[in-house]
């Protein structure tokens, strides 16, 4: 794991200065406008036509104030766009009931595959599956795939249309920080609720509350396997109870028997698991490691392998019940909890059931390494790939003095001199998601169906909700500017401008206006901060370009890849 916290001690303004073009874009903006464009690029998903003027009228400071209090911003237009998406408001339980194939359906699918026999091509198998799906579709509201596609589409729509732009940026940040993965079995039914009910309500609150909410979320417990983690001694303990005639509710042969573990099948299929049967018979350290390495202290934050094991012991019994009955919820199962005392980060944690891990969460959330690590990541997101150490220091101090008040830390960063400094402007390379969303916003395009846009983001290597590694997606430039990645960006720019992205309508003529120089007008609209001489020359050298081609070239230009 290489979260760049190692480099927080690195020299100051190696900043993103090193990553900036020497030849600064030629801008006709005054300083105020340049600051506004910068804020719209960092605290929002890029400017839309008219945004710069609107923020100017309001005043930049007032606009930032407002964005820091998203709960006071009405967002009706977005709400009505999301209303059209069937699954986004549903609970995990409703999704499992409506969009996971029933057991009978799955059984028949398997049977059918068996009957196909011979040498069925994948084509045939797919056809058969489609047929069966048609048969069972009556019982289902939709296919599992729909759930993820709609999640992705909704994320794109929010980023494009929400008035609470900074809220969307911050929710995306936390979702990436506390990454979970939609393609691991039941994960796809848990992740929507995770974003909506766990991340979003805590995005601006105390870090500890956010951390605790993720720790108790079925999505995280499932993704990082803590739901399977049990005290290895629990098996014999429960066995003894069974021998004394007291039947364990945990299920006949589950912990100690030789029964084939069923959990691995449910971890892969869309099927909920047979609850309580065949759980893994031991400690699972995955979550314990990641909560320290990725969520709080950082890889160099001062913990040992022994701490990982001890934290894992504290978290035994933190599990998910009801996956099988489509009612997934967090529960603490004291029967499989490790009953011994533990020592975490040098502190003794006396045996105390669920409370042990609650104490661990508190310790981690209030640890100085966490203040620094989280502040570093926020500064990296908002300011530069290698944020100025002085800024990180101040943000971390704010974190500590406010007991991890996220709003205060974000405030300290986005109102800092470092944020507003000219060196910070255009210093970040857009991720594929940021590129796609900012292109749609810049062009004022109307999105009626965001699924193709989401597919384009995926095609650039950033499938939304589908980052399988718990590290989340990288937020630094070098991760996103590979050869194949750049080709995908350029092709997207051309396709978008040429009207070849489905569900997106673009009116370039309106955007260019009726002036005598539509190309310059397009450039000014799409890249308010200004194009470089090189890009202007390129455009100038081509006579008779149509507006789609000009727009495509601008959206694919090096300037548009930055924010």
């Amino acid at each position, binding site marked *: *794991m290489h979260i760049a916290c190692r480099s927080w001690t690195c020299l100051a303004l190696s900043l993103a200065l*090193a*990553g900036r*073009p020497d030849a600064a874009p030629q801008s006709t903006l005054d300083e105020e406008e340049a600051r506004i464009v910068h804020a719209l690029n960092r605290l929002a998903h890029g400017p839309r036509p008219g945004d710069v003027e609107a923020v100017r009228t309001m005043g930049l400071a007032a606009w930032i104030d407002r964005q820091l209090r998203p709960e006071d911003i009405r967002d009706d237009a977005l709400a009505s766009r999301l209303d059209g998406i069937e699954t986004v408001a549903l609970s995990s339980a409703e999704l499992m009931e409506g969009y996971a194939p029933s057991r009978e359906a799955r059984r028949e699918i398997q*049977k059918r*595959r068996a*009957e*196909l*026999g*011979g*040498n*069925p091509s*994948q084509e045939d198998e797919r056809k058969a599956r489609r047929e069966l799906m048609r048969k069972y579709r009556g019982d289902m509201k939709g296919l599992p795939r729909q759930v993820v596609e709609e999640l992705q589409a909704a994320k794109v729509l929010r980023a494009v249309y929400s008035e609470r732009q900074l809220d969307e940026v911050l929710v995306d940040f936390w979702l990436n920080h506390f990454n979970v993965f939609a*393609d*691991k079995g039941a994960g796809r039914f848990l992740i929507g609720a995770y974003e909506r009910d766990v991340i979003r309500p805590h995005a601006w609150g105390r870090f500890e509350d956010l951390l605790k909410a993720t720790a108790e979320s079925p999505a995280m417990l499932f993704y*990082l396997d803590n739901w399977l983690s049990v005290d290895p001694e629990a098996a014999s303990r429960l066995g003894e109870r069974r021998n004394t005639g007291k039947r364990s509710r945990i299920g006949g042969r589950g912990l100690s028997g*030789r029964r*084939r*573990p069923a959990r*691995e*099948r449910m*971890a892969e299929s869309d099927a909920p698991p047979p609850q309580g049967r065949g759980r893994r018979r031991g400690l699972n350290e*995955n979550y314990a490691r990641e909560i320290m*390495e990725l969520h709080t202290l950082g890889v160099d934050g001062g913990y040992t392998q022994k701490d990982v094991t001890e934290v894992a012991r504290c978290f035994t019994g933190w599990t998910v019940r009801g996956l099988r009955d489509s009612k997934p919820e967090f529960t603490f199962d004291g029967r499989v909890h490790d009953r011994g005392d533990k020592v975490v980060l040098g502190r003794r944690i006396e045996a105390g059931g669920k409370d042990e891990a609650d104490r661990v969460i508190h310790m981690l959330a209030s640890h100085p390494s966490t203040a620094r690590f989280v502040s570093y990541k926020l500064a990296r997101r908002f300011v530069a790939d290698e944020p100025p150490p002085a800024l990180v220091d101040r943000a971390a101090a704010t974190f500590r003095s406010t007991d991890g008040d996220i709003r205060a830390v974000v405030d300290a960063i986005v109102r800092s001199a470092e944020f507003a400094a000219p060196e910070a402007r255009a210093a970040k390379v857009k991720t594929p998601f940021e590129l796609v969303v900012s292109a749609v916003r810049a062009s004022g395009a109307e999105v009626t169906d965001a699924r193709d846009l989401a597919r384009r983001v995926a*095609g650039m290597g950033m499938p939304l909700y589908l980052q399988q*590694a*718990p590290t989340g997606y990288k937020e630094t*430039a070098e991760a996103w*500017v*590979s*050869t*194949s*990645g*750049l080709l995908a960006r*350029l092709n997207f720019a051309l*396709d978008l401008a*040429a009207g*070849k992205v489905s569900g997106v309508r673009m009116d370039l003529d309106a955007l260019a206006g009726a002036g*005598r*120089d539509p*190309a*310059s007008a397009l450039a000014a609209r799409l890249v308010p901060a200004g194009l*470089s001489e*090189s*890009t*202007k*020359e*390129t*455009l*100038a*050298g*081509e*006579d*008779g370009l*149509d507006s*789609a081609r000009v727009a*495509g*070239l601008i959206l*694919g230009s*090096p300037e548009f890849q930055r924010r």
Partner: protein
Amino acid sequence: MFTRRFVLKSSGLALVSFGAVPAVLARALGAAKGARRKKTLVVVFQRGACDGLNTVIPYGEEPYRRLRPTIAIPAPRGGSREAALDLDGFFGLHPALHPLLPLWKEGSLAAVQAVGSPDPTRSHFDAQDFMESGTPGRKSTEDGWLNRHLQDDPDPGATPFRGVSMTPALPRILAGRVPAVAMASIREFGLRPAAGGAAAREFEEMYREPVRDVLHGAGRGTFEAVRFLRQADPTRYRPAAGVEYPRGRYGDSLMQIAQLVKADVGLEVAFTETGGWDHHAGEGGVQGQLAGRLRELGQGLAAFHRHLGDRMGDVVVVTLTEFGRTVRENGNRGTDHGHASVSLVLGGGVRGGRVAGRWPGLAADRLHEARDLAVTTDFRDLLGEVLDRHMGARDLGAVFPGHAATPSRFPGVMRS
């Protein structure tokens, strides 16, 4: 009309350099004279967990037939394709793999039985992840072992095509610091003609600016790579008549990997994948679902071998799958997630014609968790041997951190 307010193009510099030989190509040409030809490792990932016991069949084991009443492959019967094809008197090849038998006999194909990951997970997701990161049990590793191999052997004169994945997105196994290329096909590696003509030239001009930043660097590299590939024109290396790749993505991508090798684009590690190995129900025996997948697998490898001809001497292909399947067939005439499986190793320098790896046996007390074939060869030792003996890897510890892939643990698939 768009030109008026823009600064006029000031020189013909850009045009002049369009005619020049791309720097990568020049480097590659320079490297090709004199320097040794690069070796290539091709990894074929069978996603879904292939049933190794019905691929390289331990027909000599009594429990094999007993535990698989409906899906066992019959013991060899004089080369009949209704039964296993004998390999060594104990193991037999699934008859659907018959195109591979000549390669076995000539000694360029080996198998490693009971290969797998020490991590006990039976999750496809986790097990594939571990096999690609090369760090079983550790989820937060960010790069893949194929990329780490390239990192371990830095080559400033390398082409952009040291590492290529014939997949739409870069897989975990190739992710990392060394730039690698993912492409669905050679043909699609370029800019789409849009809005009435190719925009490549305009974009190239924009990214040509001598600006020292990561974007412009990538931009220049990208256009060089596109042009390099166009000039190398790998697709002209069409397979000869009679060399037939199976239809579909897997066959196509193997063919294109062969073309990249023949076109000398500097390919060192290549990746492709094949899906559909997760046969929980109706797996079939001599015929059936698994047979269909194996037919495609074997046909592809055999075609690749013939297509490359003597260039196969520079290439080793390894198949990987995340885990094997239960020894006992389940109630649906299929198999469930197990532990160890089998890898095939094909190519130059391979000590072929033998089943390598220690056979743990199928007796009840020999099974992993009383149900699965035990892992006796850590996949990192197999890959370590290939990297060491074929690719000349310098530091296996850097490729597989936390694992001592020492020669004493190599399964012995390569001639030393």
